[in-house]
């Protein structure tokens, strides 16, 4: 079996599972946020069971419309606070957490081998820790609140084996964009995507999270990476629970895959996903489009490693006058670390605005929306029509290094070329 099959078998009390099996799995952790949680609470009340199945296994995080951008949002937040208090569920409120997919692992709610569901499509991020994690909707979240169980179909698997060493200013974001460009936005539909190889073993948790985060952009059910010493080092001191043994969380040598993709990053250059599909990927050096806004942040690329990359480029420079540059650290922890390292001052001195830890402009709900005809280059994960504001705005997706370099020149710029000039 591969890792995903092993976790699904364990979660459903079986010794083995096969592709296509429908299983009834026990959930180890469920997360909802401020845009999906209120619907889940409402649906839970309709079920009629007075108490949730296990309040220790539920996490509520306010991150999308925070601080409340309207009375409507404030009312939704109030609903969640009341529910959390009544059911004694942990809730990360404004200023206490940040973006859900950063907070969950930071606070030790993601363990290798766990089965995690979240009412957010980027829940697949946690596969970076060797967990099975997938997105669900609000009604399904309510059913999990009540029963602790979910039906799942055992997915086919795609193995992506990555070898080679990244060039300067080339990052895991460029790798995942290149892979989505190659496989397409429906290239892994219903499937699990397992990353293996030397490049993955040498990659930080931040990079692994970026990869797994965007597997949903090729349609995947989950992305997953076998846990190792890098995983152990990250989780050290973050959870009181003992970590499970990692040996059973490796794919067997004879594990079956529907497809294996080999990728070497040695000659990979900075990549950009052009409007309005994540698989419309081209080298950054070929684009040169003028931009109005640059955004560095999100559950894809708002970690300390990402801010360091951007700061390395912005240090001592000014962003172009015509460009609004937004930087959003993914969590309070990342924000504090960026302060300590002097990164925040580099951003403000360069003419960027640094906003509080939240989802920000990524989903076009709150902060930094785009007007018609405007163009934004963003480190986030989706460039769909209307995603970041007007349906007549254009969104390009890239790494923090490419976004920072583009903010400086006012046009989409390959960071390797900026260095040369």
């Amino acid at each position: 079996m591969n890792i995903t099959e092993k976790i699904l078998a364990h979660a459903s009390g079986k010794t083995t599972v096969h592709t296509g099996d429908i299983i009834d799995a026990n959930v180890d952790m469920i997360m909802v946020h401020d845009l999906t949680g209120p619907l889940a609470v409402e649906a839970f009340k309709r079920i009629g069971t007075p108490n949730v199945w296990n309040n220790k296994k539920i996490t509520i995080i306010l991150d999308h419309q925070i601080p409340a951008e309207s009375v409507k949002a404030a009312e939704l937040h109030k609903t969640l606070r009341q529910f959390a208090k009544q059911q004694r569920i942990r809730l990360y409120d404004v200023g206490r957490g940040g973006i859900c997919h950063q907070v969950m692992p930071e606070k030790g709610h993601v363990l290798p081998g766990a089965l995690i569901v979240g009412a957010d499509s980027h829940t697949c991020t946690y596969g970076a820790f060797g967990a099975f994690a997938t997105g669900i909707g609000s009604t399904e979240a309510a059913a999990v609140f009540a029963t602790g169980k979910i039906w799942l179909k055992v997915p086919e698997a795609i193995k992506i084996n990555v070898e080679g060493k990244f060039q300067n200013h080339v990052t895991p974001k460029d790798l995942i964009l290149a892979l989505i460009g190659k496989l397409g936005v429906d290239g892994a539909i219903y499937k699990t995507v397992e990353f293996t190889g030397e490049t993955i073993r040498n990659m930080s948790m931040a990079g692994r999270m970026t990869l797994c985060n965007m597997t949903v952009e090729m349609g995947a059910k989950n992305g997953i990476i076998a846990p190792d010493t890098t995983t152990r080092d990250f989780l050290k001191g973050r959870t009181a629970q003992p970590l499970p043994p990692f040996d059973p969380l490796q794919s067997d040598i004879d594990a079956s895959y529907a497809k294996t993709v080999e990728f070497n990053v040695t000659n990979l250059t900075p990549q950009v996903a052009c409007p309005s599909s994540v698989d419309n990927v081209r080298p950054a050096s070929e684009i040169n489009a003028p931009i109005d806004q640059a955004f560095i942040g999100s559950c894809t690329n708002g970690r300390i490693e990402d801010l360091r990359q951007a700061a390395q480029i912005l240090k001592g420079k000014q962003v172009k006058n015509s460009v609004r540059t937004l930087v959003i650290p993914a969590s309070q922890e990342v924000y504090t670390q960026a302060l300590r390292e002097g990164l925040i001052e580099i951003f403000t001195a360069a003419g960027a605005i640094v906003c509080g830890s939240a989802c920000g402009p990524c989903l076009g709900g709150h902060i930094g929306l785009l007007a018609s005809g405007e163009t934004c280059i963003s480190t986030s994960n989706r460039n769909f029509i209307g995603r970041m504001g007007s349906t007549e705005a254009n969104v390009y997706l890239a790494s923090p290094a490419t976004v920072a370099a583009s903010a400086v020149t006012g046009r989409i710029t390959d960071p390797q070329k900026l260095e040369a000039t």
Partner: protein
Amino acid sequence: MKVKGTAIKFGDNVDTDVILPGKYLVLTDPKELAKHAMAGLDEAFPAKAQNGVIVMGGKNFGCGSSREQAPIALKHAGVQCVLAESFARIFFRNAINIGLPAIEAKGVTSAVDNGDVLEVDFEAGKVQNITKSKNLHVNKLPSFIVEILKDGGLIENLRKRINKK
């Protein structure tokens, strides 16, 4: 169980941001959400859908965000059923869970034109194109999913199961 309606066709990779843009996610009333159904592609959609339509997608219908408000907006705008070559998995589950039939129907996009009247029997796995007098066979939904749809959604289905115990 059968549903009937006029087909409105969309292309491949219709994402939930165009089905229901993020700025409307603070709305909670399904009728309010319905007013913005498909706002990213066709602002006139709610007016076209009000008398009951069948939405047809190509590949990967409903990709992107897990927002359940997307199928809720479609359902309350008057959509009886969504047929597509393939679905993004979260949208598929969400649609079923709120009682909106979502049926994977390979080859359906070439067999149906915009405006054709269709009758879909999702229990039997049959799509009848009444306009063209043609029948299409599609994959049957597993029986537990048919049960959820018959009950009107996952919550009603779960209530029934809990009360039986």
